[in-house]
């Protein structure tokens, strides 16, 4: 994506979904996962989506993150309607505007901590030097500067999750989509991660969409949605 294309597509403002429907085909037939979900996540805020297992939280997140396509409904990044973008455009949008954090960090184990963080930057076309600089900034922000050259698989669970957050923030996204980022961490690490996301949101105007089981964390969010059976109920 060159500069003109990027500017043309530069989303500003909230991420919104309107009346999203989504279903999966399974052997026993079609399973409806989302039944007309609408919500909004504003910049500089943490928006949490909570609810019981299987209610469609993660599916909603992947639709918002352009990893999947809805059956119907709309996804907006600012004023841009993005759910029908071509595959190439979706890929570029993920690289430039979206950061993902998953429950199981999903670091690439063959790479070191800093190499994992540099990946989205290098994919954007940044040179090695500026990618290293940005990755080091993030590592020191997250208190991991001493672990930069450590292979990902040699980091502790908390460290791995922080590296995953650093990787998600490396491309300075507009939207950070976090799917149970604290689900695999103890309470102290969970709070640490939440505080970190909150700080980033406030500092950078990032819009954080947090899927969580943890009601305590959900309560700490600026905006909270509760889902049941593929619907927003609160």
């Amino acid at each position: 994506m060159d500069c003109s294309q990027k500017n043309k597509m530069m989303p500003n403002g909230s991420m919104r979904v309107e009346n999203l429907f989504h279903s999966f085909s399974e052997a026993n037939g079609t399973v409806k996962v989302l039944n007309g979900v609408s919500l909004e996540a504003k910049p500089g805020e943490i928006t949490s989506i909570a609810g019981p297992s299987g209610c469609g939280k993660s599916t909603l997140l992947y639709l918002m993150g352009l990893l999947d396509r809805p059956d119907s409904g709309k996804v907006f990044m600012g004023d841009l309607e993005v759910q029908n973008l071509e595959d190439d455009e979706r890929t570029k949008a993920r690289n430039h505007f979206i950061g993902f954090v998953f429950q199981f960090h999903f670091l690439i184990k063959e790479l070191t901590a800093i190499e994992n963080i540099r990946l989205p930057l290098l994919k954007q076309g940044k040179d090695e030097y500026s990618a290293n600089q940005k990755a080091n900034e993030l590592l020191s922000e997250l208190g991991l500067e001493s672990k930069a050259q450590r292979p990902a698989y040699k980091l502790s669970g908390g460290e791995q999750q922080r590296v995953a957050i650093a990787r998600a923030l490396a491309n300075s996204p507009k939207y950070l989509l976090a799917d149970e980022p604290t689900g695999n961490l103890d309470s102290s690490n969970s709070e640490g991660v939440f505080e970190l996301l909150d700080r980033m949101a406030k500092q950078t105007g990032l819009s954080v969409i947090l899927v969580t089981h943890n009601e305590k964390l959900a309560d700490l969010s600026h905006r909270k949605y509760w889902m049941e059976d593929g619907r927003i109920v609160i």
Partner: protein
Amino acid sequence: MLCFKLAWRFVIARKRPMFLSLAGIVFGVSFFVVTQAQTSGFEKFFIQTILGTNGALRISDRFQDTYGTVEQVDDDGDTRFLFHSREGSLYHEGVDQPSLIRDALDDYPELLGVSEIIEGSAVLDTGFRRKSIVLNGIRWEDHLQSSDLNNQIIQGTMNNFSSDQMGVILGSRISQRLGLKIGDRVSLVGGTGNLHLRVSAIFESGVSQIDKNRIYIHLITARSFLGSSSGGSVFQIAINEPEHAPGLAVQLQSSLNHRVVSWQERERVWLDVFKALRFSSAITVSCILLLSGLGMFNVFAILVIEKTRDIAILRSMGFSRMDISAIFLWQGTIVLVAGITIGSLFAASGTYLISMIPLRIRGIFSTDSFVVNWDLNHYLWASCIAFVFVAVATWIPARRAARIEPAKIIRETL
């Protein structure tokens, strides 16, 4: 470049499976080159031997006049004839008018040398032993242009022969059989009577049939001995591009009205044997490469399964389907390039070592060690075959990797 770097990291992180894939390619490439170097080495050596001994082309018997029939007579009296094919037509033995043939051959710039030979049968008699031989009467200066006789001489010299009108060059097996050495006298019996010759040189072509039957004497001496002032000759011809001999043979045959046989037609049986051997070994070794390819396919298919989650993550970071394919194709390329490079080094070392192995062969050619052919084409062919197998072995898993839907994988992983 990013995809290449990732591919490199993935390759070096999986040492054992990648080493096995690499070993398959190294083994396949080196084995292919070594077997081709051997079989084509012997074939090339055989061709050199027979070209050096009997030339690329031989002009022999004159065709009987072609049988023609009147096909049509027009109203204005013009007559059209139909001439039948020379397939199966009869010959008059030998070249009819050698001097005319020789003049006609001057018009062909692709000919390197033309040697008129008069052939006949006789018996060599030492007084103690006799042996039937095939005598070849030659003009030595012409014959050296169309053969490798000078290099085939193992005792005596060509000068001995050229300066002695009654000199004879014997095949090595004849000299052994009759116990003759340079300077010895020997009688040639048959033809118009007896001829007393002096052994000027002994040659060894390596072709046992020639070494135990052929002698060379001067053309003029042979004519006098066989009682033919002209005719009964053959022409042995060397050409600058021996592989074009069949085409030239057809051309000469139609213009000279004599039977012209190329070395490929003359030695078809042996050439077919070599061809069969070469193909057989190529097929065998290609099967090894195919097995390597299957092994590699297996490694890459498993790799894609192992890396499914990483692929999903890379996709979520903004790597396109093409990038994902590229990462796997680069891995295949890295293993392929390393395999071809190391395989070629092994092949060159193996070929050299094999060429050092002592092996005495006398029969269709003469050698005391394995004959190998250093030919870049063998390396190119091995590389091409390895490329095809590796391309298929990596392309299918790479394509599968590119089709992975990230949301589905992440959902299933959680």
